[in-house]
C-alpha cells in the first residue's frame, strides 16, 4: 500500500451490503418460522458470525490490514470465550443449588412469602 488509506471499488461494498441484508432476513426468518431447539440456536449463531465476520473483514477493512494489527485486535477477544465458559459453569451450579433450596422461588419472589 502506497497510501495509508483504504480504497476499494464501490461494488465490493454493495455486495457485502446485499449479503448482510440477506443474512439479516435469514436470521429474522428463524424467529418468524419459530424454529426451536438446536436447529434454532445453530442457525442464529451461524448467521450472527457470518454477519459479524463480513462487517469486520470488509466494512472495517480488517482483511486488508497487516497481521500485526489483525492479531492485536482479534486474539484478545478469545479471552471472552474463557469468560463465557466459566460463567456458564458457574450459572449451571447456581441454578442447581437454587433448584435444591428454592423450589418455591416463584412464590418467594412474588411476595407470597415464607412468613
Amino acid at each position, binding site marked *: *500500500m502506497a497510501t*495509508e*488509506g*483504504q*480504497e*476499494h471499488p*464501490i461494488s465490493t*461494498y*454493495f455486495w*457485502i*451490503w446485499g449479503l*448482510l*441484508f440477506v443474512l*439479516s432476513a435469514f*436470521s*429474522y426468518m*428463524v*424467529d*418468524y418460522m*419459530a424454529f426451536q431447539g438446536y436447529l*434454532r*440456536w445453530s442457525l*442464529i*449463531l451461524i*448467521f*450472527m458470525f457470518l*454477519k*459479524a465476520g463480513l*462487517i*469486520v473483514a*470488509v*466494512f*472495517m*477493512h480488517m482483511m486488508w*490490514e*497487516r*497481521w*500485526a*494489527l489483525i*492479531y*492485536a*485486535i482479534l486474539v*484478545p*477477544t478469545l479471552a*471472552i470465550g474463557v*469468560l*463465557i465458559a466459566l*460463567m*456458564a459453569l*458457574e*450459572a*449451571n451450579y*447456581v*441454578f442447581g443449588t*437454587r*433448584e435444591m433450596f*428454592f423450589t418455591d*422461588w*416463584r412464590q418467594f*419472589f412474588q411476595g407470597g412469602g415464607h412468613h
Partner: protein
Amino acid sequence: MSESVQLQPGLKGLVADWSSDQRAFKGVPWGKAMMWIFLLSDTFVFSCFLVAYMSVRMTTMVEWPNPSEVFALEAFGTPVPLLLIAIMTFILITSSGTMAMAVKFGYEKNRNVTFWLLIITALLGASFVGMQAFEWTKLIQEGVRPWSNPMGAPQFGAAFFMITGFHGTHVTFGVIFLIIIAIKVRRGDFDHERPGFMTGRKGRYEMVETMGLYWHFVDLVWVFIFAFFYLW
C-alpha cells in the same frame, strides 16, 4: 509515510512489525490504530453485559419472557414477531452501507457526496435511537422495570434496559460525531488540513475512516444483541 525498509507480508510481517523496536502498527495512521484499541476495550464491556445476561437467564427460577412475543407489533391486524426490531436491524445495516461509501468517497476527496452520505448515516442512526425510545416507552408502559417485570423473570428488565441502553448511548454519540465529521468535510477542513477544536493534529480524510470504524462497531454490537437477546 516513509518506510525505508520493505514491509514483509503475513506471519513474517507480524513478527517483524512487533519486534521492529518502533511503532508496531505499520501502514495505518495512529488515530486508526487507537480507535481499534478502543473498540477492543468496548468489545469487552459489551461482552461483560451479554455474559451477565447469560448468567441471570441461566439461573433464574422464574420463566424468562419470550422475546418473540414481548417485542411483537400489531401490523394489518395481526401480531408480527419482532417487527420493530427487524426494522431497526435493517436500518442499522443500511447506515453501515452508507458509512462505508462515505469513507470511500472521502478518500476520493469528493466532499459533496461524502457530506451527504455522512448526513444520511446520521439520520438513519437517529431514527434507530427514536425507535429504541419507542420500544422503551412501550415496555415501561407494560410495567417492565430494571428491578421487576410482570411477564416473568425480573432480570429480563435489568438486562434489557442495561444492554439496549448502553448500545443506544453508543449510537447517540455516533450520531453526534457523524454530524461533526460531516461539517468538517463540508467546510473542507480535511482538504486544507485544518486542525480540530481541541487538537493540534491536522485534519485528514482518514478521520472519516476512523469514524466509520466506530459506526460499523455499533452495527456489529447490534448483530450480537439481536442474536442473543432478541432471537435466543
